[in-house]
């Protein structure tokens, strides 16, 4: 009891500890609350949260690259695509229709790691020749890579299913699973459980477990020698190199670990959707994940997770629902004229709201960088650094003449 009290006292003012606690509580209570609030019809929302977990995983991974090591990766979705397609190839009938003629059905738990290591390998392959470039050139190389990879998958013809993509991927399986009233069944034990869309709660639980594992791993790496080396490279590469940090291999590790997380998320994404197509991995995915990291707070794991959760909620729940809401609001307010489609341009207020997604993106990125560059839940280290920069800016006279 005494130790618990000491723990509470020590962490009561630690924003990260509070954030972790709230996130754990939220994750545990979310399915129950949703099912209760929607009177048992909350499966859709639970599944949506499981999909959101994919973005949170990617935000954690990109945070390693951008936040910890200070490398701007604008083609992060490429590794996501590589993870997904790898999963699709090793866990579906697709390889049977390719010239290879033999389909592979690697179990989900192994295929997840195959996807992860393939993405990490791709990250190392791209990083090895390019990581010696300076910051913004690296951003451009990754951007080019992110544009190339989905197009390669699209053009690779029979190997990747071309434009339609690959269908009917294997779903995760477990030796057993608990069912209960949350899937409208009595309590019980199901042997040889298969994850299907009938039981989205299972996907949700799996997602939470995967996130927890990744957070623990990344957190430990950050607090290790490697994490300190990242910080050193981020702050001053020359000084870091002078103190004996092998900057190239350190950056390569950050890049590969970020890619691995993305590939991991991608493999899960393929399994959950049971389908991959090159349309799902465009630049917009990379920017979304980047916006999540920036919004949450670069260099802080719970920050990236929080940013991921908040932005996912805005983009995939709030905005898709907003048009209908605005429409009914306009009718209720007696402004029904706004809902009518005018052939000379006005497409109806619902359409306008759904088109404004990119405006919101842009406003978040610009607004956060200008008003709160440290993000919603800032990293204490980076906060100091940004404050330091501000002092410098004030100290330097902007204009010397009159």
């Amino acid at each position, binding site marked *: 009891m005494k130790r618990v009290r000491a723990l509470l006292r020590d962490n009561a003012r630690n924003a990260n500890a509070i954030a972790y606690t709230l996130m754990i509580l939220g994750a545990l209570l979310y399915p129950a609350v949703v099912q209760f609030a929607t009177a048992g019809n909350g499966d859709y929302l639970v599944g949506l949260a499981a999909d959101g977990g994919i973005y949170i995983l990617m935000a954690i991974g990109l945070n390693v690259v951008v936040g910890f090591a200070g490398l701007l990766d604008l083609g992060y979705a490429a590794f996501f695509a590589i993870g997904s397609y790898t999963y699709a190839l090793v866990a579906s009938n697709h390889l049977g229709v390719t010239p290879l003629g033999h389909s592979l059905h690697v179990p989900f738990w192994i295929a997840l790691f195959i996807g992860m290591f393939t993405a990490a390998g791709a990250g190392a392959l791209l990083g090895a020749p390019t990581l010696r470039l300076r910051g913004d050139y690296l*951003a451009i190389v990754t951007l080019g890579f992110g*544009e190339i990879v989905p197009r390669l998958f699209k053009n690779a013809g029979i190997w990747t299913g071309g434009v339609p993509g690959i269908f009917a991927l294997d779903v995760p399986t477990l030796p057993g699973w608990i069912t209960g009233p949350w899937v409208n069944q009595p309590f019980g034990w199901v042997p040889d459980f298969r994850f299907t869309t009938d039981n989205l709660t299972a996907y949700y639980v799996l997602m939470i477990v995967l996130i927890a594992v990744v957070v623990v791993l990344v957190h430990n790496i950050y607090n290790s020698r490697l994490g300190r080396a990242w910080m050193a490279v981020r702050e001053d590469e020359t000084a870091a190199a002078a103190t004996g940090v092998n900057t190239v291999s350190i950056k390569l590790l950050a890049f590969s670990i970020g890619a691995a997380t993305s590939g991991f998320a991608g493999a899960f994404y393929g399994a959950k959707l049971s389908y991959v197509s090159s349309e799902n991995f465009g630049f917009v995915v990379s920017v979304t994940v980047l916006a999540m990291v920036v919004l949450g707070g670069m260099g802080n794991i719970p920050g990236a997770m929080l940013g991921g959760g908040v932005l996912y909620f805005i983009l995939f729940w709030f905005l898709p629902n907003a048009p209908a809401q605005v429409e009914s609001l306009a009718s209720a307010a007696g402004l029904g004229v706004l809902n009518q489609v005018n052939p000379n341009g006005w497409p109806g207020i619902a359409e306008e709201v759904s088109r*404004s997604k990119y405006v919101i993106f842009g406003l978040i*990125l610009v607004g956060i960088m200008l008003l709160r560059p440290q993000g919603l839940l800032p990293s204490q280290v980076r906060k100091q650094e940004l404050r330091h920069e501000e002092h410098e800016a004030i100290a330097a006279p902007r204009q010397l*003449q009159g």
Partner: protein
Amino acid sequence: MVQRLRNSLTSTPTASAINAVGVVLVVAALVAAAIRIYQGGAGYFFQTIGFGLAQGAIFALVALGYTMVYGIIELINFAHGDVFTLGAFISLSLMPLLGLNEGQISGAALIIPLLVLFVVTMLVCALVNIGIERIAYRPLRHAPRLAPLITAIGMSALLEGVMNVWRGPSQLHYPDFLPEYQIPLGGGVTIAAKAATVIVIAVVLMVVLTLFVNRSKLGKAMRATAQDRDAAQLMGIDINRTIAATFFIGAALAGAGGIIYGLYYNSVSAFDGFTYGLYAFTAAVFGGIGNIPGAAIGGILIGIIYSISDGYFSVSWTQILVFAILIFVLVFRPTGLLGMRVPEK
């Protein structure tokens, strides 16, 4: 060049292995292209080159803005490609006001309204770009380098979003005013009048820009600021005004590029600018970022490569090829074709 190549080939084992792979790939691509071109015949080749020159002229106009901004504040202005689309959108909305309705106006009567259209559009784009600089880049001039890059992406998304809300996400028809006949160049070689018009407009604009940067006082201030901002400030140059002027000129060229793009392709959509901007950026990097003639040459080359890939190989691989060139140039020769090797700041 040969010496440089030899040096780069013998520096370190891994670097030389990477460079050898690069040389082999480039040679293989050139040989494949040469074989296809030889099989295709001369007429088709000149048609492809004419198309490539027109496209390259537009790339060059957009690339100039990237290269000027990068040269002066070392920022990749991601919003630049969208300022280019904005030019097409604004001119599209201005056309009915200037009496430029498709099918009702042609020949010499076009010249004055088109001139007004160019001037007004370029001005509006330039003012928008100055606004972007003022809001998103100037406050972050002393921040870590990542910060303005992220606001640039944000501004790009914002502009795309605004155009999307304004005119919708679908392809818009852009009126066709340019002549459709072929101009003989002698020896049986012809060039489409449409392509020729585009090339002439772009070349005129680029000549004016070069003269301005090389001869005018503001141009001198720009070159000084690009070289050393602090020293330029000590010499009494108003840095903020000079940087704003750079954004002004870059956006005016991009706006003109947007009109030419619309007139040439007769179709435009809110999201064209991002990919097109990336091609133009590739052109700027290819020519040597920060180098004005380099951007023009890079634009023309990328345009020709683009049209050769479209014409002789597959359209679906062209984009991959252009982005592969981008990565290639950055990995093997980050200074581009004409760029100088500069120490990192």
